[in-house]
């Protein structure tokens, strides 16, 4: 299958990104959030009181965690036809939770 000319979706090709579907965005966002978390956690350990880093940490944790819950629900048998709705709920839930925790200011 690999030795003959075969078209693949290449990251650098605009055509390959055209019509990228919700499930792909959900998967990609969760991975990007994970990579972002590694950097933000390192910054947070250096100076735990930087508000911008705190905001980034909260946002990435919520994004990564809620998309993870979406994946777990699908893994445990929720029909795949719900995956777009779950993605939307994860995003909206993330925004609402961010607003709630950020306004709460626990210290």
């Amino acid at each position, binding site marked *: *299958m*690999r030795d*003959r*000319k*075969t*078209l*693949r*979706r290449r990251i650098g090709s605009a*055509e*390959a*990104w*055209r*019509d990228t*579907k*919700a*499930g*792909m965005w*959900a*998967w990609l966002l969760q991975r990007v959030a994970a990579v972002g978390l590694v950097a933000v956690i390192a910054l947070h350990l250096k100076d735990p009181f930087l508000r911008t880093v705190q905001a980034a940490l909260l946002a990435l944790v919520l994004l990564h965690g809620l998309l993870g819950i979406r*994946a777990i629900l*699908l*893994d*445990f*048998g929720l*029909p*795949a*036809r719900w*995956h777009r709705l779950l993605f939307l709920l994860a995003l909206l839930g993330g925004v609402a939770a961010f607003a709630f925790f950020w306004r709460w200011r626990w210290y």
Partner: protein
Amino acid sequence: MVLKVFRWGPGTRERAQKYWVKARQGMTVLDALVEVQRGSDPTLAFRYACRVGMCGSCGMVINGRERWACRTLLSGLARGVVTVRPLYNFPLIRDLVVDMAPIKSQMLAMKAVFVPGRRATDGGGFAQIGSNTRERRAVDGAVECIGCGMCVSACTMVGHDARFPGPAALNRVFSLQRDSRDGAHAERSVALLSEDVLARCHGQANCTDVCPMEISPTDSILALRRRAVLRLFGIAPR
């Protein structure tokens, strides 16, 4: 309407060729391609058979999405140039025609063929599973696959890992693993646990989104995963 069609043949360079087609009411992408072939360019190669959305032969990537050309109305597409490309992840033969052989080889690699087991006959001939039984309902959607290859084209994992059998083969495996007459469940279960099979699916559901038969290979793969986990804990899945 301008069609921007992928062109390639053995010994020639890949290129995108533009054709102007006068769009009529009810005209599909397949109609437009046929018009081009019969009119301005008889060398344009593409595959089709039934023309009415049954056989799946005319699967191609239209405006970035896998669709069957015979059921895709030009009026339903976004305004502007319509791009038409062959399916991804299949070896090219010429222009929009791809070699579908990988689907067969992926199925054979996963032993996705019926192997008669002890319950294949019931004394009076081949055992039948009633249409309204729990066993039949569990695979209702999965058995409708027409082998069009659109799910394989949409799957990012197939493009990344040549050993991943892809959604079509795994969907077929799912229906066989749920078939009480089949005698190769244990053998397939071992193959499913290899690192390039069930564990490789990332659940992006691209396959499910593009399936023209509205089958959900994602659900089939996730169901196989749950059964594999139960087996690991010594629980016989129903």
